[in-house]
């Protein structure tokens, strides 16, 4: 079977599985996908062979040797299909920017994942809303995967073209508040999407004049990114309190998204709840040295498995720390990339 045929067949199976969990089995699809990636993604085969893992021997997805995020910064890990789009990481996680390439069929699979995920979480009430984006429009951030994904969501769930509150890298002056006030006057629910820190920045900017801005019923917010490395850090509880105070949004209308440029799928949580992996993904919280799963509630390193990563490695070793809670998980922070150090030099210190 040619690579193109094999890929098409796999994507067809995975697409069906995303739409209907009863149509297949995650582990079986993951093992098939491993076989494809073993043969068709450059650099992976010698790595898997060094681990003595081959398609013939693989029994469980959890035995797939994961690819660390830092490897994406050094190697182009793509199956060589006709590349339609390349996204880049922001560079907040260590030095350099990783890349993530997509062919037409990969983009379609990612879009399916994004929309299906949104349908069952962010828009589980099936309510369409207006959209205000606290992220730059895709034209200004063509290689940021979140901007792309949010545009897809707006395309499906927005009642009108989304309003972008950011232009030329900065918040617009008065227009964002005017837009939200019009939503209030029109009693039109609005979905606000942005980086976690973007919400705080926005509220810090406008709250002194406005006090609060109670959004119409049916409104919701989606934040992503967290506060790591930012000048102001908020706990999840603090963030939700801020949303309740300023937008008068109850926690159940506040969603958080955890995603990576290297991954086609994302993970949502609602209010104070933990994140639930969609059924075409798996998350294992593991002991960093053994990569064996830790006990429920214990902190470990997050390993992510995503069937929509067909042209790119499906098993990812992140540098995010987290805890598993039953079928869900939470992200607790990011590895610093360092260790306690006395007077012993680190090159990071002098570069």
């Amino acid at each position, binding site marked *: 079977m040619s690579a193109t045929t094999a890929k098409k067949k796999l994507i067809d199976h995975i697409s069906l599985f995303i739409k209907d969990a009863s149509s297949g089995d995650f582990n079986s699809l993951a093992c098939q996908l491993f076989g494809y990636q073993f043969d068709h993604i450059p*650099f992976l085969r*010698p*790595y898997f*062979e*060094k*681990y003595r893992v081959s398609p013939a021997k693989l029994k469980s997805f959890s035995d797939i040797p*994961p*690819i*660390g*995020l*830092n*490897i994406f910064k*050094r*190697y182009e890990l793509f199956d060589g299909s006709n590349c339609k789009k390349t996204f880049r990481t922001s560079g907040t996680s260590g030095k350099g920017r990783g890349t993530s390439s997509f062919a037409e069929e990969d983009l379609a699979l990612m879009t399916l994942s994004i929309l299906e995920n949104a349908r069952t979480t962010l828009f589980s009430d099936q309510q369409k809303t207006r959209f205000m984006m606290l992220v730059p429009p895709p034209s200004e951030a063509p290689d940021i995967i979140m901007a792309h994904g949010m545009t897809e969501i707006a395309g499906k769930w927005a009642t009108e073209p989304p309003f972008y509150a950011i232009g030329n890298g900065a918040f617009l002056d008065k227009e964002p508040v005017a837009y939200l006030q019009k939503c209030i006057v029109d009693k039109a629910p609005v979905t606000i999407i942005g980086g976690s820190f973007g919400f705080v920045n926005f509220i810090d900017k406008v709250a002194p004049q406005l006090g609060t801005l109670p959004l119409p019923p049916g409104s919701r917010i989606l934040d992503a990114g967290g506060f790591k490395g930012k000048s102001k850090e908020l706990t999840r509880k603090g963030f939700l309190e801020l949303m309740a105070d300023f937008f008068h949004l109850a926690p159940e209308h506040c969603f958080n998204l955890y995603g990576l440029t290297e991954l086609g799928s994302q993970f949502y949580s609602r209010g104070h709840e933990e994140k639930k992996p969609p059924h075409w993904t798996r998350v294992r919280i593991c*002991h*960093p*040295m053994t*990569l064996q799963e830790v006990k429920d509630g214990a*902190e*470990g*390193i997050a390993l992510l498995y995503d069937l929509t990563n067909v042209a790119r490695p499906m098993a990812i*070793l992140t*540098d995010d*720390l987290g805890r598993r809670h039953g079928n869900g998980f939470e992200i607790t*922070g990011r*590895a*610093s*990339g*360092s*260790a*306690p*150090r*006395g*007077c*012993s*030099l*680190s*090159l*990071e*210190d*002098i570069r």
Partner: protein
Amino acid sequence: MKIHMDGFHIPGFQGETYIRTIGSTQLLLPRLTADDITRATDHLLGKGREILKSYSTDDLAEIFGMAADFWQHKSGIKAEVITAISDLTGLSRLVICESISVEQGNSSTRDILAAMDRDLGSHQCLDTFCHDPHLNGKARAYGPRLTSAVLTANVPGLSYLPMVRALMVKSPLIAKLASNEPIFGPAWIKSVAAIEPPLAECIALCHWTGGNDTLQKAMFEPAEVVILYGGEQTCKKLRNVIGPHKKIIEHGHKIGLLLIGQEGLSNAGAAQDLATRIALDVAMFDQRACVAPQIVYVEKNGSISTLELTALIEDALINLEEDLPPSLMSVDTGASLAMERNVAFFEAAQHEGMELFARSTATLIHEKDADFNTVLPTRFLRVCPVDSLDDVMDILRPFKPYLQNVGIEVDPDRLADLAEQLGAMGVSRITRPGLMHRPSMRWKHDGLSTFSELVRWTDIELEV
């Protein structure tokens, strides 16, 4: 059982304190104001200086030698200090115990006086005018009216060193303790006070967390000399607080290296012995000290291959886990190490000659080509094969300001030439593998005559 420890030592301090509990340790810490610091420096400049004037350097060295002796033996106090440092830093008790013993073992009365004589000609020049054979007359040295210091963390026991150096030149010292290890300094001065109570009046050891410009200024302002330990960025910030017209003795972060000639790999026994010594240098301070090696440059073509040596070091590091247990690894450090290992394993799969050795807490990367890359200090070495050790010099050149200890295993007839090149490059100590972790007090620390740096001189020249 709870252990109660003081995380500061400030003569006459009457201010507010609080307790921080870490594991079994209850640490008493002060809430300091700039006025508290000023009261402490006034005390040191008055009573502290007077007390120090009343001792000869021989007396002081004898007292500090006795304190060093105390810390080399088992005691209830030492056991509590070790437990508390372990609670705070995560270092294992055996590593802390061994670190203290090694540090204090280099600090006998004889060592202290020899180090001073190396630097100053004669230590007695701090007591009186002494005949100077190179001057037609006499010379006398004076220590600073007050020395201040910012001390390092994570190398257990090291905080005593600037205290000994300042007091030996009869300068009272005020220092900020490392916020995550404020235990050993106060415990050491207590051990000195148990031998000679008045000396407790000559030192103030302060504690606060993070940078605090107000407190730092109050500490630096009355001092004539400032000793700084810390990384590049920390020292830069502190230099700005100190201002331009004060003498600063800086011990920045440094790197240790190993250079192994092919003659060190002439047979299996020699390689095994070498690997054991290298592992000891890595494990002693859990690789957190600047004297610990991070990179090993090894000549190819020895009877034992560079890959075989790497495997032997891995075995030796594992064997040391019982005698020198590694620190408890946080999830953060573990995750950071997992990422390093993951990249190395991936790279090794792509490149012939590169290999990752990762077992238990030992991590060794046998590189394909020689390079200069530091490691996470978690018992982690990069082994770089080279055709000749002479090739290493070009690799090291861009990092001249950061080179410090180099352990060399070559035949004696090659040592002089390599030492010449390394010395010119800025390396301040050359030794054998296995001795990197125990620099003597006589070593010119970071290439500095540390006692000379502290003093000023008065000469009597009656004939010219």
